[in-house]
């Protein structure tokens, strides 16, 4: 008789991840930091179908209990008893319950940062999500639409031929260059002001660059974060090969989501293994040019002092995931008139804005509550402007601002730079003007 399959299989988990699941000491430190758990405990957000939870039940949304749930389920399938008598079946409802808990996570990674056992929780959640998708348990809510949207090679189902429709006529995009600017879907179709600011700044600083245009496909962050990897390899290989065709040595990003995905995830899917070019956040790239003397502060040619109190939200992706903290701060420090102030939680202990991990699409009311919490952090330090290097954080934080009674405004780092340098941020007429966020 065929042996039953475990209710939760080890598919998509690496050997190290299975070890890490057993490495959790259940110390509970992650409970002090998880931003999703915070909203659930404060009852500003209640997961669908979980109304009336006790305090103990709320803890099921903590990283600690998610790991415990996985360990218990895996042991029922692969433990000693399972080896002797066959896997113990787990009611499907219990597996789905755990799945929902694991999808209620922005993959911000703070649980990993504070984990005493150094467990890379984000990658474990993503492996679980992939496993859930393989077994038709995932993804969650509207996240199911991502794969269909990407038939157009971008997450907005826009025409790929319009990828560069926002670029001002006087911006020179080289056919081939050492440096490529990877725009990302959001800046190309919904936050074109970020794209315009970035290209204006690059041109003003005499940095020759190329762009992929219609050959720039989605970085597939949305698919990887939600466990839907069907298209990942094709998209990654396409983008990497397109960069190779352009002779690129360094790819720079003004989008933290694309940056993280390219730097950490692309090498896992690229057929050639390690990428044949360097991946840098644009602030990192500028920081390097300032260090090696290619750029000096005088090159920025400041024209408009900011005269505002500015606070910086480290995106999870470029910050905690890639460890870039000082470079963006160096840029703000240069901006004349900017009074830079730090929020209580910054750098590796920053509070997630709630946009990532598929939460914005899958559990949008949770994303909104988390964004409001981050705006409150900025209010506490009397900031006029909250800034970031991530269009997706920008979108969510702006939603938070709009839902609150606050005078704080949001500006992307490149917008602040461009405005201070007196650069024109007018968008050329294009089919997406009315869809700007």
């Amino acid at each position: 008789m065929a042996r039953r399959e475990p209710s939760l299989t080890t598919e998509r988990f690496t050997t190290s991840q299975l070890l890490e699941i057993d490495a959790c000491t259940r110390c509970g430190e992650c409970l002090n930091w998880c931003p999703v758990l915070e909203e659930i405990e404060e009852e500003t957000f209640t997961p669908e179908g979980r109304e009336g939870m006790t305090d103990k039940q709320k803890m099921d949304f903590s990283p600690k209990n998610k790991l415990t749930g996985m360990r218990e389920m895996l042991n029922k399938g692969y433990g000693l008893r399972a080896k002797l008598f066959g896997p113990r079946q787990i009611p499907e409802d219990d597996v789905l319950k755990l799945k929902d808990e694991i999808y209620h996570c922005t993959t911000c990674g703070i649980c990993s940062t504070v984990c005493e056992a150094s467990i890379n929780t984000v990658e474990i959640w993503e492996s679980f999500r992939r496993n859930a998708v393989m077994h038709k348990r995932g993804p969650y809510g509207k996240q199911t639409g991502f794969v269909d949207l990407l038939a157009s090679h971008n997450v907005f189902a826009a025409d790929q031929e319009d990828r560069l429709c926002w670029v001002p006529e006087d911006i020179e995009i080289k056919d081939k260059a050492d440096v490529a600017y990877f725009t990302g879907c959001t800046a190309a179709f919904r936050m074109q002001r970020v794209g315009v600011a970035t290209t204006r700044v690059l041109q003003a600083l005499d940095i020759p660059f190329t762009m992929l245009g219609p050959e720039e496909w989605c970085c597939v962050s949305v698919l990887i974060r939600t466990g839907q990897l069907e298209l990942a390899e094709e998209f990654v290989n396409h983008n990497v090969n397109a960069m190779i065709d352009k002779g690129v040595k360094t790819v720079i990003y003004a989008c933290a989501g694309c940056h993280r995905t390219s730097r950490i995830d692309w090498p896992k899917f690229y057929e050639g293994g390690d990428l044949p070019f360097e991946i840098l956040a644009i602030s990192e790239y500028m920081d390097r040019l300032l260090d090696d003397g290619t750029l000096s502060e005088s090159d920025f040619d400041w024209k408009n002092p900011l005269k505002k109190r500015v606070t910086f939200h480290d995106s999870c992706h470029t910050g905690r995931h890639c460890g870039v903290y000082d470079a963006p701060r160096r840029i703000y420090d240069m901006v004349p008139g900017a009074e830079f102030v730090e929020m209580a939680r910054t750098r590796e202990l920053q509070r997630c804005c709630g946009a990532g991990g598929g939460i914005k699409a899958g559990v949008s009311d949770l994303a909104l509550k988390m964004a409001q919490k981050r705006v409150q952090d900025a209010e506490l330090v009397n900031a006029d402007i909250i800034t970031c290097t991530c269009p997706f954080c920008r979108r969510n934080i702006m939603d938070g601002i709009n839902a609150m009674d606050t005078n704080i405004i949001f500006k992307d780092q490149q917008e602040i730079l461009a405005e201070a340098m007196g650069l024109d941020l007018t968008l050329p007429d294009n089919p997406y003007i009315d869809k700007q966020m």
Partner: protein
Amino acid sequence: MVEHMAEYYSGLSVDNTLTFGVALVMGFIAVIACFGGILFQMKKWGYGSAGYGKEGQKGSIGGFLKLLLSQIFDKKHEQGVLTTLVMDILIQRRILKRSVLRWVMHITIFWGWIMLFVFSMGIFVVELLSKAGIYHAEVHPLVENFPLIVTLNSVFGYVLFIGVLIAIARRLFIKEVREGTTFYDLFLIWGLFVIVITGFISEGIRYAGTEYATALTDLWSLGISNTAAPPAALFHVVISLLFCVAMIPFTKYIHIIATPLSILAHGGGE
């Protein structure tokens, strides 16, 4: 009275009686269970893949070890393996950075457990040598010949005890910790509690009525005569072997192995 202590070290036997033999057999069983269990766990981990997106390895212990070692010695880590071993495993700075109380709790349990384990093994070896006729002492051999070990054994016993008491107190007095505690956690904490308590009691009984007794050992003896020393010691040894050795792979004790490996695989660091 004193003759009950005259020719043994671990407190288990006089004149090669049953208790030492039982402990020896239990020891072998415990070690076999522990190593067998660890291999079983490695096989379980070996069901995972060798890398992101790759196929599972069908329970390959070799595959598991290969990936683990490649991660531990990954040149991309910001600090060396030795630094990680010292700072993040032996000193446990990741815990210290987050909570001083939890660090005191864990570092005392960690070092108390390790040192008692080492001393117990040392005493066991001396006893084996004695029984083989290689080593012999006429007087109370442990106290007379290894006073430092006896003292350190007691000190680390109390170090472990302090850690276990903090762990219990946290669960009694901190609501979040209490509500988050499961049988998985309690098995480890109460296991350690029973081990350390029975250790003190068996030592107290052993010294009761002898020139080596102190007010503290008399307190721990619970007024029991030292004629009961061998069975008391046997009880302590058996449950120590069960909890601290045989059950390691199958309970929360697995973190003794898995957590340091996880820290090493990720290169440690603050």
